[in-house]
């Protein structure tokens, strides 16, 4: 190991070793026993739902939620992001080092691991999987972040040691391994989750009905007593798109866990069985509103001028009563947003940011600076146009529709008419990404990765998902150029403190300029049947079964 290398994960490795060492005999017995019978604590079949059939069982190609859940439950990964601590923990790699320029990572592999078909896991399998993820011809969504590092060389040094060297450094590189499920080298790039290193493998699928995951008899993890994990024999993923029906089936005992509930359904369940309904506090799923700032949009010039004004956006932010949005629209299961990052993202949240106050008079003062004036109950701009804009959201989302109505009344109080229109989702996407024929939009987002690197596709002015004004050739405003600079700065250093400082600054600029008005951070609302033992739900996905190998079913 070179002087500048950092050893990461070694303490966790020691913890796992310490667990297993006093139980060598037990482990040996269990190992011999596993071929003919299951561990004493192995229990039944856990039933949960997915919204649709998985589009693929190839873990490298998983993009939709259902495929991603299958990937999580079946895939063995080299490094896991612990959903509870939000820290990296060793899995198939017992430890890893990243060289000082951040271009090369070396991973030491856990010995004696077998795939679910009984074949040995070797460095070759890890290398083949990573090469497939990096292959531009495969277009693996899971490999996108790796490919950002430019050309890469993946090598096996020994049976239990591999390294990857990238052209450019990648900040937060270790976390990316959480997405890469290792497959046998013979199946790399075309794996189907039937031969896996995770706790379960895909056993059976009935399209439109369910996916059955069967216990991996060779899974490497053991509990503190030396029993082989997972405890469950199987996990059945019912395909069910209707959330009301999901709750009915939960009440009937047909399913045991619900990962995400609307406040309305949560309240229903809570009134019947308070112990099953759990509010985990703020999640990383903000509800936000943004205005159309695209220069080439078909909006009239005077309206473009309003929407591109910092004072106008900040005034709108101040005139919206976020506390009421959380209390009324989300039934109290949300907290007013402070900035673009939820406090649930413990490390990256900027603690120095102050919440935007609810201050309609302050909002009017800001608007006056731009020449707006009240004419009776109507706010008018300096050319005499009454201030009115449309606010669109996706139809059918009741909390969001309530939020729209609340925003409508809040802004009415300062003389602004908001025409609130719930639309079908494809129409919204069409308007927001292609025609730019909209004034303002209210939507929610799920941050699947806590690291700001995962948000480069939103915050860079050139990005296609730069919500308010996407795909700019050069930054159209000074503050967007500044955000670009800080986002690139955090992505180009390995020093976590430096990265944090840069991303803190991005959060400050976003708060000052308010290109997106973050309204509330929704709470993570889940349901856990009393039958499920060892459940320890968290705010990150998959909330209720992130520790699937430790879950078991009682009577």
């Amino acid at each position, binding site marked *: 190991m070179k002087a500048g290398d950092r050893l990461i994960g070694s303490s966790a490795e020691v913890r796992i070793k310490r667990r297993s060492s006093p139980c060598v005999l037990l482990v040996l017995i269990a190992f011999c026993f596993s071929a003919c019978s299951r561990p004493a604590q192995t229990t039944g079949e856990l039933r949960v739902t997915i919204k649709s059939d998985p589009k693929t069982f190839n873990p490298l190609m998983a993009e939709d939620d259902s495929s991603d859940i299958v990937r999580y439950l079946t895939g063995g990964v080299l490094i896991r992001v612990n959903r509870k601590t939000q820290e990296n923990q060793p899995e198939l790699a017992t430890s890893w080092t990243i060289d000082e320029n951040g271009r090369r990572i070396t991973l030491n592999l856990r010995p004696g691991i077998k795939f679910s078909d009984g074949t040995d896991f070797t460095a070759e399998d890890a290398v083949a999987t990573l090469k497939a993820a990096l292959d531009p011809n495969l277009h693996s969504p899971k490999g996108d972040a790796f490919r950002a590092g430019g050309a890469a060389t993946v090598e096996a040094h020994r049976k239990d040691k591999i390294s990857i060297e990238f052209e450019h450094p990648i900040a937060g590189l270790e976390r990316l391994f959480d997405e890469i499920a290792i497959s046998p080298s013979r199946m790399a790039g075309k794996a189907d989750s039937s031969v896996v290193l995770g706790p379960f493998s895909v056993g059976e699928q009935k399209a439109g009905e369910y996916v059955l995951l069967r216990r991996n008899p060779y899974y490497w993890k053991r509990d503190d007593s030396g029993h082989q994990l997972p405890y469950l024999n199987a996990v059945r993923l019912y395909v069910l798109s209707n959330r009301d029906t999901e709750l009915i089936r939960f009440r009937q005992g047909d399913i045991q866990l619900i990962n995400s509930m609307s406040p*309305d359904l949560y309240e*229903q369940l809570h009134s019947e069985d308070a112990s099953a309904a759990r509010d985990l506090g703020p999640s990383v799923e903000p509800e936000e509103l943004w205005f159309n700032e695209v220069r080439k949009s078909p909006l009239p010039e005077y309206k473009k001028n309003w929407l591109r004004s910092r004072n106008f956006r900040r005034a709108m932010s101040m005139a919206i009563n976020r506390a*009421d949005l959380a*209390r*009324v629209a989300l039934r109290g299961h949300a907290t007013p947003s402070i900035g673009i990052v939820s406090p649930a993202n413990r490390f990256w949240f900027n603690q120095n940011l102050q919440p935007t106050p609810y201050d309609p008079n302050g909002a009017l003062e800001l608007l006056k600076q731009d020449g707006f004036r009240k004419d009776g109950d109507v706010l008018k701009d300096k050319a005499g146009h009454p201030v*009115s*804009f*449309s606010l*669109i959201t996706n*139809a*059918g989302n009741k909390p969001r*529709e*309530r939020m*729209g*109505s*609340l925003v*409508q*009344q809040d802004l009415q109080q300062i003389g602004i*008419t908001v*025409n*609130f*229109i*719930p*639309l*079908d989702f494809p*129409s919204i996407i*069409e308007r927001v990404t292609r025609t730019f*024929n*909209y*004034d303002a939009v209210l939507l929610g987002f799920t941050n699947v990765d806590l690291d700001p690197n995962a948000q480069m596709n939103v915050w860079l002015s050139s990005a296609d998902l730069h919500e308010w004004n996407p795909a700019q050739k050069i930054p159209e405003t000074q503050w967007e150029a500044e955000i670009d600079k800080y986002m690139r700065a955090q992505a180009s250093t390995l020093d976590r403190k430096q990265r944090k400082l840069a991303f803190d600054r991005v959060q400050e600029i976003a708060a000052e300029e308010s290109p997106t008005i973050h309204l509330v951070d929704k709470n993570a609302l889940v349901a856990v049947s009393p039958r499920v033992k060892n459940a320890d739900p968290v705010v990150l996905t998959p909330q209720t079964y992130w520790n699937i190998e430790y879950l078991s079913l009682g009577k």
Partner: protein
Amino acid sequence: MSAARWAAVALLAAVFLIALAANLFAPAPYAKQFRQDLNHPPTQQYPLGTDELGRDRLSRLLYGMRISLLLAPAAALLSTLLAAIVGGAGAYIGGVWDRLTNVVINLFLSLPWLFLLLTVRALLPLDVPALTSVVITFALLGTLGWAASARIVAATVRDLRNSEFVLQARASGCPSLRLLLRHVLPNVKPILIAQFWISVPLFILTEANLGMLGLGVTEPLPSWGNLLRELENYGALAHRPWLWAPLISLVLVMSLFQFILSGEEYAS
């Protein structure tokens, strides 16, 4: 007309008057949010309680009735007139025109209306006041919803055209216009009236469904349709029976219409 029918007429007139003068009878503005009184049960202040945003339910019901009672019959009238003109004229003239009418009716019946309405909505500007949006919605329903009625009207007119009394009138030298006005139209009238009344609740419910796709009456304007959406929350209905009020009032009004109408038909 019997006393019962007179009572029905009086009751219906009262409902219309109350709905038309909603601003006089409503305890609060329909959009006013009493945010401290969410889902409040009925009290003296809120006779039908408040909704999930703290808005007075009775006020919303009265204003919603006004919008639906004015616009749904207007849309039904439009669609029935179109059905009478297209279906009736084609069948009465006969020959190529009758076949052409049939093709047009079949074409309209086979169109995927939901997608067509979504397309039409996409072409309309977003930033329009709620009242304009609701008028556009019902105008669309009236303009596009005539085909089913037209088929029935056409079939009836076709039968009448070949009936013995029409043949006899024609053989007696009765001019075409007189034949249409004196012999055909009076016999088609009950069909048209029935189609009109069938269309009214249909348009009210269609408006409610379109609301789910952003095409119906938009917030904060209430309509019978969007008030009925609250019945989706069936779990709450047992505990809060006052949520049934929009449905009960709709059934009541429609029943009164039918009761009065059936008497008219029998009389004619």
